[in-house]
């Protein structure tokens, strides 16, 4: 996700947080069956994350949000066509929500400590690791959390209207790790 420049960053010992815009679309399919899932996987060159709370990574990163609902880390334009083709004959809808979200990259050995201040989600590597994702209540707002392969990095997606709040929360929460 590192391609865009950060809108805002924060660094503390053992902790780095960066706020970024991210291309994002939500794909909804009504009652998808195995065939659509397969078609989508083929279209995107990955194993489509049909299981709850999983993530697949190919050219596009795709996260399960709900039954029949996925977040594609891409704007609607580039994925519109493959989606339409794969979902041919199924009721589906693709919303471009690029402007509706903010992505927060949290890295460093303190990242779990930081998350634990904001969410009741268990982020221990034994139960929450790369390939998984979870939506939860974080800092009192809805968030999608995706652990990174590296072990102590996480991506968080929150609604853009809460960006000011989430930023303020991070500044406050990181205070403890300042030195």
């Amino acid at each position, binding site marked *: 996700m590192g391609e865009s420049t950060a809108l805002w960053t924060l660094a503390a010992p053992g902790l780095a947080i960066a706020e970024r815009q991210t291309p994002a679309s939500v794909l909804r*399919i009504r009652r998808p069956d195995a065939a659509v899932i397969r078609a989508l996987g083929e279209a995107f060159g990955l194993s489509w994350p049909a299981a709850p709370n999983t993530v697949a990574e190919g050219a596009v990163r795709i996260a399960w949000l709900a039954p029949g609902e996925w977040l594609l880390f891409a704007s609607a334009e580039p994925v519109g066509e493959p989606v339409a083709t794969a979902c041919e004959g199924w009721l589906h809808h693709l919303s*471009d929500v690029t*402007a509706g979200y903010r992505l927060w990259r949290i890295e460093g050995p303190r990242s779990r400590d930081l998350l634990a*201040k904001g969410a009741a989600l268990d982020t221990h590597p*034994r139960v929450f690791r790369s390939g998984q994702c979870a939506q939860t209540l974080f800092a009192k707002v809805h968030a999608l959390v995706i652990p990174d392969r590296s072990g102590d990095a996480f991506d968080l997606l929150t*609604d853009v*209207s*809460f960006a000011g*709040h989430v930023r*303020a929360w991070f500044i406050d929460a990181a205070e403890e790790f300042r030195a």
Partner: protein
Amino acid sequence: MSGRRLPGGGRIDRNRPLNFTFEGRPYRGYVGDTLASALLAAGVRVVGRSFKYHRPRGLLAAGVEEANALVQVGEGARAEVNLRATEVELHEGLTARAVNCWPSARFDVGAVNNLFGRLLPAGFYYKTFMWPDWRWFEPVIRRAAGLGRPSILPDPDRYETRHAHCDLLVVGSGPAGLAAALAASRRGERVMLVEQDPLPGGSLLWRPAQIDGRSGSDWAERAAAEIAAAPDALVLTRTTAIGYFDHNALALLERVAGAAGSPGPDHRPRQRLWSVRARRVVLAAGALERPLVFPGNDRPGVMLASAVSEYAARWAARAGDEAVVFTNNDSAYAAAHALLDTGGRVAAVVDSRPAPPARRTASLQARGVRTLLGASIVATHGRPALTGVTIRDAEGHDHRVAADVLAMSGGWNPTVHLFSQSGGALVWDGEQALFRPGRSAQAEVSVGAAAGEFGLSTAIEQGWRAGGGEGAPPLADAADERWTIGPLWRVPARGKAFVDFQNDVTADDIALSARENFVSVEHLKRYTTLGMAADQGKTSNVNALAIMAELTGRPIADVGTTRFRPPFTPATFGAIGGRARGELFQPLRRLPAHDRHVQAGAAFEEYGGWLRPAHYPGAGESAHAAEQREALAVRRAVGLFDGSPLGKIDVVGADAAEFLDRIYANTLSTLKVGRARYGLMLNEQGAVIDDGVTVRLAADHFLVGTTGGGADRIAAWLEEWLQCEWPDLDVLVAPVTTAWAVLTLSGPKARDVLDAAGVDMAIGEEDFPHMTFRECRVAGVPARISRVSFTGEVSFEVSVAADRACELWDRLRLAGAPFGLAPVGIEAWMLLRMEMGYLHLGADTDGATTPDDIGWGRVLKRRRDFVGRRSLTRPELLRKDRLQFVGVEAVDSTVPVPVGSHLRSPGLPSGSEGYVTSSGLSPTLGRGVALAMVRAGRSRYGEELLVITGEGRGRRVRVTVPGVRGPGGEPLDG
């Protein structure tokens, strides 16, 4: 100051002395001391006054159960009140004083209460102060009650909260808890070990013990270190498990930094509340010793026997020089030995049992201590502190013996608080005279003293097993000794014998309570306030209920305990709330063009969770003036309003139209593609819950518009109906509200501004009429425009991707400048719609308003079902005299009638016939305009009503159709 600090030993650092003051006098202690141990070592005997009688009190205990030594530490904003001196870690410069006494603990004016003590039995206030009225007495009683006086300055410190998960949470780091945590951490489990004390070890810190060939405290230190070093284990000291909630959720309070009453340490929190979810819990919280109930048992110098031992061993503080021990069980013998070991004298051991185990008495007799069996203490002497006791021997003869410390033990109570909070039931163990955990209700096991097992080996073994330990547990080198008790619940002798030291409840009060039929323990508690003080009866509850059992001839098991409730020990509000302060308490949403509004000088207010411009006051301009100016700009030129919070939900699918017909009270299926329609949604009770403009983008695609506050709620509402009621409908719901910004141009010059900004389509009235919708580009930005109006003026609601809001804002302002464009806040916007008579949901309606009430009865003529449909034909909703939405105009002046004013026909004597729901000063007309809900209002146009409440009382208004006309009678939007 007597030299009560022992020459050696103790876990204090004699190289690091600390200065502190108590009640204004300077003292010295050492690093490792608590305020209590330092005071004891300094020979301070009176540390506080009791709650009701203001009797002088000394230290009773050494730990969390301390009932007497309540102190205030620090002054000003960081002052803390009602702290137990036994838990206050000493630090340089600490200042402390006793609470609830004046001028000092030694000389307390309130002690006159003690003289009138007879007039103040339990519940005396229920029997008097009724005449002439309670309010004459209440202030005096209130001032007398209460313990500390808290600061009213804002607390300057930080508090944090955090969540945690683990396989095993161990509460208590005594031998049992350490064994459990050690076992589990060796298995690689995620372990949390929490200990309220600054040091791990529990009783090993002061009880002599040998484990695996080391001294108990060494073993504890090593075990704790090993656990802490395990990769997935966490050892938290200074951390109290305060609550055990459902599904193995526990709350811990960690004292992170900043000693009591002193400045917090920079960036670190003072305290942290942990909210832990544990797969399994081991409760190894130990046991608390019970006092004995006998006359004068509250005199300073009377202490729990275990406390006497603990002060000596852990802090090298000897409680007295000449001791008497009074017990009904074996454990106090250890205290006698401890006193002897540390150079004290033991004048006598008084054991109420006629025949305690011979080896106990023999071991003391061997050291020259007199033991009186079947005896008890019937009085204590000394003022203010103990100088002697009267012992009544087995034959009934009284002997006075000099003593400056009386070490008492009435037996032990397993610390079952958390177990009981977890839902587990307690069982009465008659042999050991205690309540112990029975069957667990959650994934929990109690071990060691907390389970009523007082042997060291047993404690370790139980802990080890509970932690899943494989192989042999750590080995205690002495075999467990049997421990026996012969209950003595109260010494039958005259005089005030205290049961609850903190709330001054005596054995006589319990008798009174029984006499008056307050025999249930819960009644006893509430009638006498026993167990309701800051210590929650840690030392008093079991004694009390046993006395009640004796008095009423019931088995103790039947009497039962009062309920154990969180927190185990008091927890600061700060820690419970954590950092959720100010804006972090409840998040606010910001508009995509928030920064632009700031630049434009907006005054922000919260509207439905969003921070939005109320108005944009210029330099020196009042809020009212700004709002008037902005509204005029819309009427005369053009305004720019940020409506981004308006909900936007895509509804697609073959059944989309059918679905919306079921959801909306009016018909959506007949809407033509590209056109917009206003719609109302009801709940099943028929009340209007949201309104908005919906456009049809394609035959099977609608864009549903909701109110700003309704965006999330309505998206969830649609999902709920689809998922739960109509799963067969071929529909998808896609909320996209915040991906879009909505900037609305409104006013006679709106079209000009849009033109000037550049739009790639024809926007003339014919090309792009009212209530239609187009996709286009505005100033090069891809946009969707709706021709809807909330002001009555020509309006273009321009939606663009939220991340382009600022760009569009800038372009429109630039293009609008020559036309007099002004940013418009919510308040002016409201004024404009009020002038037009447009309804604003939530202002003009409440949670019971129906479509017909607001003049939308027409839409109900349909024959088909929709959400709320059936409710509308219930008799009450068909009444003709319901409140109906109308306009009202003042007939007597141009001043607006305040919102909320009630109205009534001048002919009616009483009651309300409605009220003003929206009101403001119309800058166009120069007079007030208002909307109202009026009984049968639509049939009363032209009728005059009286304003009967509020500032406008006595004024007259006329009922009109909603919305006002221009000076010539033409509609304002003409």
